[in-house]
């Protein structure tokens, strides 16, 4: 069998997804055995120009991580889409915006103002802001355009498969690579490397009747390691999040943050979570409800931590 031609790219990403691929440890040699890597900026020295010259469809599979935050991300996404037979949105940022898309709560102007003018460590008396074209004596310098909205990959190009996770766990990556290598893939558009049931379903913690009198932030409580974290007042996203991650946060006594995304058929993970939480708050009057809800510091940022690109209501942006 011919070797699989593979590209791995990072757009608006933290590098965690690339590290997660390296985390398959010695199996990386098997990946290298099964695949020719044509582009992987974090690990190899291929140039964009090399990829540009390739004929459409030259790449079998592209694992694209990171959100699309600027015109360079968009350009490379389109180029890799053209060159790749199978495009995989890899990691929460590519799937639904991830952490970078939390910026969608703010407008572009507000972000630039904050970053280039207002932060305490900034000294910018001339009020310089990045521009796309900057004339200098030697010619014109170009910078990518900073978009007003952080996009998920499928808002920019067609995506064949989705692998959620921040980052996807190494075991799942290995399964996905094997599935691709053997052509053993589900119908296009599917989410792979995650389960169709909620994290609660595979969570080993003891569950009883959920009734919450008070919410805690992680630093305010050392939770019991056996009991369901939500029952102890921690905002665990397990009820509305796909399983398949192996429950790493849960086993570290930390609540699920929702990175594996909404369950199949759920349009909006945050809205579903409001629904779940509402059902278990132990209060019968609006005043009691208000008091208990005051314990939630940043509801939207918590419930949409990884999904602001694909949320139904899109924050400050349109």
């Amino acid at each position, binding site marked *: 069998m011919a070797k699989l031609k593979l590209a791995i790219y990072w757009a608006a990403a933290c590098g965690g997804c690339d590290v997660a691929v390296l985390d398959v440890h010695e199996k990386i040699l098997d990946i290298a055995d099964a695949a020719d890597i044509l582009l992987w900026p974090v690990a190899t020295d291929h140039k964009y120009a090399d990829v540009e010259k390739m004929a459409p469809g030259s790449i079998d599979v592209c694992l694209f991580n990171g959100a699309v935050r600027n015109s360079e991300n968009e350009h490379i996404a389109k180029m890799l889409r053209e060159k790749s037979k199978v495009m995989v949105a890899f990691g929460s940022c590519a799937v639904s915006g991830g952490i970078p898309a939390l910026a969608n*709560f*703010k*407008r572009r102007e*507000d972000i630039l103002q904050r970053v280039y003018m207002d932060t305490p460590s900034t000294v910018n008396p001339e009020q310089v802001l990045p521009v796309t074209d900057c004339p200098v004596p030697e010619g014109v310098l170009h910078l990518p355009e900073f978009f007003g909205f952080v996009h998920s990959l499928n808002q920019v190009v067609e995506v064949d498969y989705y692998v959620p996770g921040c980052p996807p766990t190494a075991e799942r990556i290995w399964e996905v690579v094997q599935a691709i290598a053997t052509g053993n893939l589900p119908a296009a558009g599917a989410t792979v490397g995650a389960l169709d049931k909620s994290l609660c379903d595979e969570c080993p913690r003891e569950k009883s009747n959920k009734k919450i009198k008070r919410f805690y932030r992680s630093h305010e409580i050392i939770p019991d390691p056996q009991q369901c974290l939500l029952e102890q007042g921690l905002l665990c996203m397990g009820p509305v999040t796909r399983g398949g991650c192996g429950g790493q946060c849960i086993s570290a006594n930390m609540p699920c943050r929702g990175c594996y995304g909404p369950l199949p058929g*759920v*349009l*909006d993970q*945050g*809205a*579903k979570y*409001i*629904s779940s*939480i*509402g*059902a278990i*708050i132990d*209060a*019968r009057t*609006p005043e009691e*409800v*208000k008091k208990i*809800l005051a314990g*939630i510091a*940043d*509801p*939207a*940022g918590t*419930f949409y931590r990884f999904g602001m690109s694909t*949320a*139904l*209501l*899109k*924050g*400050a*942006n*349109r």
Partner: protein
Amino acid sequence: MNNFEPKIIGFLCNWCSYAGADLAGVSRLQYPANLRVVRVMCSGRVDPTFVFKALDVGADGVLIAGCHPGDCHYSDGNYNTMRRYPLMLQVLEQMGVDKRRVRLEWVSAAEGPQFAKIVNEFTEQIRRLGPFKKGELAERGAKVG
């Protein structure tokens, strides 16, 4: 803005509020035709997704109406609504939506006039707010997020 006819989606519970709307109808009480009613079995069935989706596809306002606390046909459903509603409003506001666009009311089967009054008032309020646009609060210069 003068010609603006708000589109308002009303989720009314089968046992109280829908019957209240029905009573308003048979009593020939006037209320604006801006309200499009969706009958649900219980206000507790109104997943916040319904509200967000309604706004996403073009509603300018959403009314949720259920039985008074203590009167729920399923004993507890409207308490879920009562608890979800303020959390939903907080999230709406962080998302840049004016929270006056979403209203929760308790309307019994006997409260036809009350129902007509609520719809009249709410329609006027939405008319004043104008058409819904995503990110409207940020556009008006409010601090959101």
